[in-house]
């Protein structure tokens, strides 16, 4: 059995009176891909923000590689191996694609020169090398999402959080990104992935966590989760009623 890399224990995050994440608990094994799904506003992005240090949990604990990292700031988590993408992409628009990735590599490689070498490798891998000199602001949506992945990868993370990196892409682009994620998985990087497109989640995930109104309503193998009455209710409940 592989070691646990991420332990989410009873995590709560409230905004005022709103329980955006309410008592979520799961473990992620090394090399595992876990899908995180739920209707809009279920709390997926908020959970990502808690795990990656943008919000301290209101309650509960997060352990990464056996170390309690609850409330540790994002830049420290990035340095110890948690890479993330943003649902609303955050490129540095005034900088070139290459510079964007060089910045991400600095925390591992120290100098600009070493980081640039590394950045080229990453861009070759993610298929952005031919757009390296372009300003990040001029990328298409597919390009910007790919840039998000490139930057997170440049950190050489052991855990990667992907927030809707496939959403909004056309089927060809989507397939390319899925292929890319499978390759990343092949490196043994653990992945937590948020996606609304079921096909993507079913294809990629070893297990799936389902959130609804902040609460964890299911956890298990994709096929089992898809049959779970609670999950069906959460997704189609209103239509059925």
């Amino acid at each position: 059995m592989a070691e646990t890399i991420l332990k989410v224990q009873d995590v709560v995050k409230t905004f005022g009176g709103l329980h955006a994440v309410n008592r979520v608990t799961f473990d992620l094994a090394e090399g595992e891909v876990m899908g995180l799904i739920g209707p809009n506003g279920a709390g997926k992005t908020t959970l990502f923000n808690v795990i990656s240090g943008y919000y301290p949990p209101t309650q509960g604990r997060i352990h990464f590689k056996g170390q309690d990292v609850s409330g540790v700031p994002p830049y420290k988590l990035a340095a110890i191996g948690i890479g993330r993408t943003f649902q609303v992409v955050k490129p540095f628009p005034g900088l070139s694609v290459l510079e964007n990735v060089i910045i991400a590599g600095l925390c591992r490689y120290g100098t600009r020169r070493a980081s640039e070498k590394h950045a080229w490798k990453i861009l070759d891998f993610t298929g952005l090398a031919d757009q390296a000199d372009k300003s990040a602001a001029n990328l298409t949506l597919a390009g910007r999402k790919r840039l998000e992945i490139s930057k997170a990868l440049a950190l050489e993370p052991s855990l990667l959080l992907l927030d809707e990196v496939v959403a909004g892409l056309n089927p060809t682009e989507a397939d390319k990104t899925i292929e890319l994620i499978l390759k990343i998985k092949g490196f043994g990087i653990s992945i937590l992935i948020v996606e609304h497109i079921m096909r993507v989640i079913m294809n990629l995930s070893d297990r799936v966590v389902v959130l609804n109104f902040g609460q964890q309503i299911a956890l298990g193998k994709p096929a089992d989760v898809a049959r779970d009455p609670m999950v069906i209710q959460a997704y189609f409940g209103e239509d059925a009623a």
Partner: protein
Amino acid sequence: MFFGVGAYTTAILMKLGGWAFILTVPLGGLFAGILAFFVGLPTLRLKGSYFAIGTWALALALQQLALILDITGGPDGMRLPPYLNPSYFYYWMLGVVGGTFALYWILLEWAPFGLKVRAIREDQDGAMALGINPTRVKVQSFVLSAVPVGLLGSIYAYWITFIDPLSAFGDILTDQAVVMAVVGGLGTLIGPAIGAVIVFTFKTLFWAYLSDYQVLYLIILGVAIALTVLFLPNGLWGTFINYRDSSRGMRTQSVSRPRIDASEHSDEQEKGAPEHG
């Protein structure tokens, strides 16, 4: 504020400590840097205008302190033994400015530091996800910007041979510096230098021809800032760079892509506008 710290460091050490000028200059820079560190650390953590308000309040507090303390001579200020050799001070200033420019160039254009600063300016949350600690980089930048100002304050004190709380901690100096930076172009190395030439030329002409209307001076500076922020948010140099890059971009793009007509219209407009206005 840091200018005053440097100026008073030199004045106090030379006058009361009998130090040689040359030794006081580095200390002026050092104290300015230390002060910047302790001011920056708490205020740069906060978002928004706390930092600006905090530094402004502190500048006033320091000015008041210089007014009431004995070692600063209170409101009478401090007089230093005159050293009448303008070229001596010219070379000192040139050395500090040149050294600062070279250091900043290396740090910003060549070392990782510059990329980190730009990343934070473009997207702070995005930068944090990549292992950059924004507070740390901001405090480093703040200290780096304070030290040369402290050095120049030190030199200024001995050059002018007289400082008082108003000349050392007054607003006019900072106000002018802000105009230089904003008009020339924030976030560039060349921009503020261009801004400085413009402001200085304006100042010289103003005092030559309009010295009867002193009150106009700050009003004109204020209007200059307002107009720049509204119409040239990147300043003169920044606007020039953008214009140059975008016209370059069009040329390279037109090789691989069909040329877009709109770009030609906008070219014409930019050229035509000054004639009408």
